[in-house]
């Protein structure tokens, strides 16, 4: 019995270490390739010899990766700010205000969750083109065009609503009796106790915005408005790929999120798996 348990522990250890290696080696390979000379990509092994920063230099000088990076940051920050604003307000109204037809509204919102983005993408694109023709600084092929469809998230509204419902009405009533308006109640009473939910919302919408690909690909047409995933995909889909450059771009795209994930691991996992334990 004891011997069998021992063998089991060994097998478990081997499986864990082996699978971890399978998960980590691709990242290490990416990192090492980004430091290789283009001619050595497939001839040298895991370690670049000699390591060079040429690929990173090329990626920011020959290809506007610095611009893509800036665009991604602006888009992500805007999406997060707008979502915190809109989702929180909408969720508060749905959870705590006496709206007529609230139940119907909720069901209607839920059904939109079933509809994939792909159905709306064509009309949304036409809409952004129309906006762009009216006001050249906005709409298609601008950062605002990338942000607009993500400015509010139904999933985000639900997330916040579930949290707000659990806040006791008595807390709000007291403030109402003191003559506080709904916005000041939201800002001064509801928001301060809702930080865990807001943190989840920030991570969820931020990560989605940073990694989003299909919509930014469709709505952008020039380097001035492209985000990191779009820029990287354009590099990687070429027939003759410069692998060191492409991997340098991959590292620049992936690294910010990996660093954030390592720092905020628990919050990340909560933010992305919300809902799995409910229902």
């Amino acid at each position, binding site marked *: 019995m004891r011997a069998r348990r021992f063998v089991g522990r060994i097998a478990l250890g081997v499986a864990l270490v082996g699978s971890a290696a399978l998960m980590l080696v691709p990242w290490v390979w990416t990192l090492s390739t980004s430091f290789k000379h283009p001619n050595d990509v497939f001839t040298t092994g895991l370690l670049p010899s000699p390591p060079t920063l040429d690929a990173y230099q090329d990626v920011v000088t020959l290809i506007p990766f610095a611009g893509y990076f800036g665009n991604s940051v602006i888009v992500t920050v805007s999406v997060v700010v707008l979502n915190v604003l809109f989702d929180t307000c909408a969720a508060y109204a749905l959870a705590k205000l006496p709206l007529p037809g609230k139940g119907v509204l909720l069901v209607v919102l839920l059904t939109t969750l079933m509809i*994939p983005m792909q159905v709306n993408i064509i009309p949304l694109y036409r*809409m952004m083109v129309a906006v762009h023709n009216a006001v050249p600084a906005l709409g298609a092929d601008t950062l605002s065009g990338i942000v607009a469809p993500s400015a509010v998230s139904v999933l985000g509204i639900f997330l916040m609503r579930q949290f707000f419902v659990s806040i006791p009405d008595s807390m709000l009533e007291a403030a109402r009796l003191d003559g506080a308006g709904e916005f000041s109640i939201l800002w001064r009473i509801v928001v301060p106790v809702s930080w865990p939910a807001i943190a989840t919302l920030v991570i969820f919408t931020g990560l989605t915005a940073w990694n989003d690909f299909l919509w930014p690909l469709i709505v952008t047409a020039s380097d001035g408005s492209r985000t990191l995933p779009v820029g990287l995909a354009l590099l990687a889909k070429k027939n003759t790929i410069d692998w060191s450059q492409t991997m340098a771009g991959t590292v620049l795209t992936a690294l910010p999120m990996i660093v954030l*994930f390592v720092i905020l691991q628990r919050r990340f996992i909560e933010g992305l798996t919300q809902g799995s334990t409910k229902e």
Partner: protein
Amino acid sequence: MVVVTVLFFVPMGTSLVYSFSDYSGIGPLRWVGLDNYADLFGDPRFAQAWGNTAVFAVVTMTVGPLLGLLTALMLNQRIPARAFFRAVYFVPVTSSLVVVSTLWKLLLNDRGPVNSVLSTLGLPAHDWLADPSTSLLAVSAASIWQGFGFETVVFLAALQGIPAELLEAARMDGAGIWRRFLSVTLPALRPTTLFVFVVGVIGAFQAFDQMYVMTQGGPVGSTTTIVYYIVERFKNLDLGAASAAAYLLVLVLVLISVVQLRIGRER
């Protein structure tokens, strides 16, 4: 609410209209009835795209959850550095699909490390992404690598929610490890499994990024998924056909989800 209306319902209505018209983005809209739908059903590429999407969904949604459950069971043992291993599986989930596809395109390259390892082991090297008979499976493998950490984390959370007394009681009754797994653990995981499949299948049917980066839908259409097809028609300014295809996708997704929820609730 106004924002939601503008962003969801107006486009939804518009694309429904498009799907019955021959709109090309410029010029007037002309009503063509069901012509777009007829066009789709007459296009062999459309049928091929459905086939590819189905294969992709079945492969990723059997191997992915299985791997996720397996790793979750491993992490649920008394092991050192559990948080580290969990993070290792989860990192690709937080990364962009474009990033993961790009790095797997390198690994699976003709002269890439996967083939080097294979030839070291004495196995034949293969150009995985360029051969139509392996390209879809290669893309599926990369997608599984990217996504199964999500299932790991979800299953692990559910496993830790199973009361220890329940498993202890089963052990007292003389149930072996398999018996305990089949009659206590698996039934307790049912709601989680349902969630994993409903969310996962919807995601699998919308696959696009991996194919765009790794294979551009090829070779010879072998990795053209339904969304890839929609985007292609859209780029050719066949807005009507693209919208019609998108609506068919929604219809199929709703049907599959309903069936899944039915099965999940019955047992």
